[in-house]
């Protein structure tokens, strides 16, 4: 049943993306809209390196490093801004990266995309079948999950949450706010790069359209549904949003209608979640909501910074 394996692989890839996006948005409070572009950077780095003959494990690591470097660079101007302005800047960066992917035809072949990316292989073992690839993706997901859980529960993670709650108070306690924010972006972007590498070597074809706004909104929906500032929540959200549109496949509708229904489904879920459970299924603020149930911290953060 490689159909189920396929769904599981996508849950793993989106799980990694959602968990790492949650690190920046949920825990560090940086409204990062560049995540899909980091995913793309990872995918392109890994694909281009492998196509020139670099072994998979090495290009996988490079995908992490290059995406992390971009994450760090973008964090330098971006973390000096707040709220909606930060969102605009990170979104702008994402658009620039997509534009480069589309137009640097010598390197990326532009909108034609990169075909024929070899399947992942490790020490001579080729992850050819979907189930075999699922094992690889699951291992990477578990590693990501463990590392990010460790990070958010460490003193580093607590400081990150403290900065999100009250930046001036954190400064007053002698914390270098910019440093913490930059590290959060760097780590988040690196893991998005890893997800990109897995994606490229699974699909074996990438083009810029896989890393646009639509993907970003999907990732954002995952953390909103699953729970902002919750690592298991992000994974749950990823699983729900990957599985939910699957039944549409069996309705035998034309693909243009299915795509539209998918989008409507996602936005419907998003609106319903924000209305009835603004911090998601496993959101961190469960306790506080009882006291202050009217509006979500997440929405306030977006508007007020």
């Amino acid at each position, binding site marked *: 049943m490689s159909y189920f394996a396929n769904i599981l692989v996508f849950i793993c890839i989106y799980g990694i993306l959602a968990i790492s996006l949650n690190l920046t948005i949920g825990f560090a409070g940086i409204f990062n809209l560049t995540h899909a572009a980091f995913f793309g950077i990872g995918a392109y780095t890994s694909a281009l390196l492998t196509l020139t003959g670099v072994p998979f494990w090495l290009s996988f690591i490079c995908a992490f490093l290059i995406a992390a470097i971009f994450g760090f660079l973008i964090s330098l101007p971006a973390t000096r801004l707040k709220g909606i302005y930060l969102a605009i800047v990170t979104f702008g960066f994402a658009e620039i990266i997509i534009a480069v992917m589309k137009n640097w035809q010598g390197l990326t072949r532009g909108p034609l995309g990169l075909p024929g990316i070899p399947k992942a292989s490790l020490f001579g073992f080729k992850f050819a079948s979907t189930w075999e690839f699922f094992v690889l993706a699951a291992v990477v997901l578990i590693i990501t999950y463990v590392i990010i859980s460790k990070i958010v529960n460490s003193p580093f993670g*607590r400081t990150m*949450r403290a900065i999100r709650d009250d930046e001036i108070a954190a400064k007053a306690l*002698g914390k270098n706010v910019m440093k913490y924010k930059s590290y959060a972006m760097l780590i988040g972007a690196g893991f998005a790069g890893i997800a990109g590498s897995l994606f490229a070597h699974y699909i074996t074809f990438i083009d810029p359209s896989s890393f646009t706004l639509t993907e970003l909104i999907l990732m954002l929906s995952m953390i909103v549904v699953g729970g902002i500032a919750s690592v298991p929540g992000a994974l749950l959200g990823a699983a729900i949003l990957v599985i939910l549109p699957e039944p549409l496949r069996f309705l035998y509708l034309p693909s243009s209608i299915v795509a539209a229904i998918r989008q409507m489904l996602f936005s419907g879920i998003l609106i319903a979640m924000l209305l009835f459970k603004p911090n998601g299924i496993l959101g961190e603020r469960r306790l*506080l909501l009882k006291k202050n149930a009217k509006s979500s911290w997440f929405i306030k953060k977006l508007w007020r910074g």
Partner: protein
Amino acid sequence: MILSIDKLNAWYGKLQVLHDIDMHFNTGEIVSIIGPNGAGKSTVLKSIFNLIKKKGRIIYKNKNITKYTPQQIAKAGITYVPQGRSVFTDLTVHENIEIGAFIKPGNPWKDFKRVYTMFPNLKDLKNTRAGLLSGGEQQMTAIARALMLKPRVLLLDEPTLGLSPKVRTLIFDKIIEINKTGVTIIMVEQNAKRSLEISNRAYVLEICRNKYSGRGKQLLEDQRIKKLYLGGK
């Protein structure tokens, strides 16, 4: 003299809010900065901590700290408790206090013990989320957190803002207690009467300028202060 401010000017964007302020603070004093709304009381503290655009000279222990970043200032021994119970609402009380640790070398466990003996009620609330506490408890958490940095100078921005009179008394008692351990306290207060009662000295700001200074108890009797607060000239 532990801290002195020399010709301090500060701006919010293009608006100048402080004009040539001079102040000095002796070791072990409690000094209040009082004045009407918009006089720039909080701004003085913010500019000591380098959180806004400013000009002038700030000397701490014979060192010029004017250009220090907030984290350098915190390491040097000045700590700032911002206005409005600035606790990290999602963290527990213990986690809040813990954030204050680890900036200085040395064993933080002793500091935990010291802080919890000073604020015994926080020990019982250790595992409660700070956002669920009452206003007074939140303010105490914020002060306790600042004490973890073992400050020599503690800047308090309106520590009793929006608290009930009973809790206010409690907070003022704690401030005296902290001061007795040798910490210099610089406090901005709306509640001028109570803060003058416990202060050694006070500065009065009126619309961005340093108006008068004097002994706390003296100022309390001063006719000019009464007029200033009633809005007269």
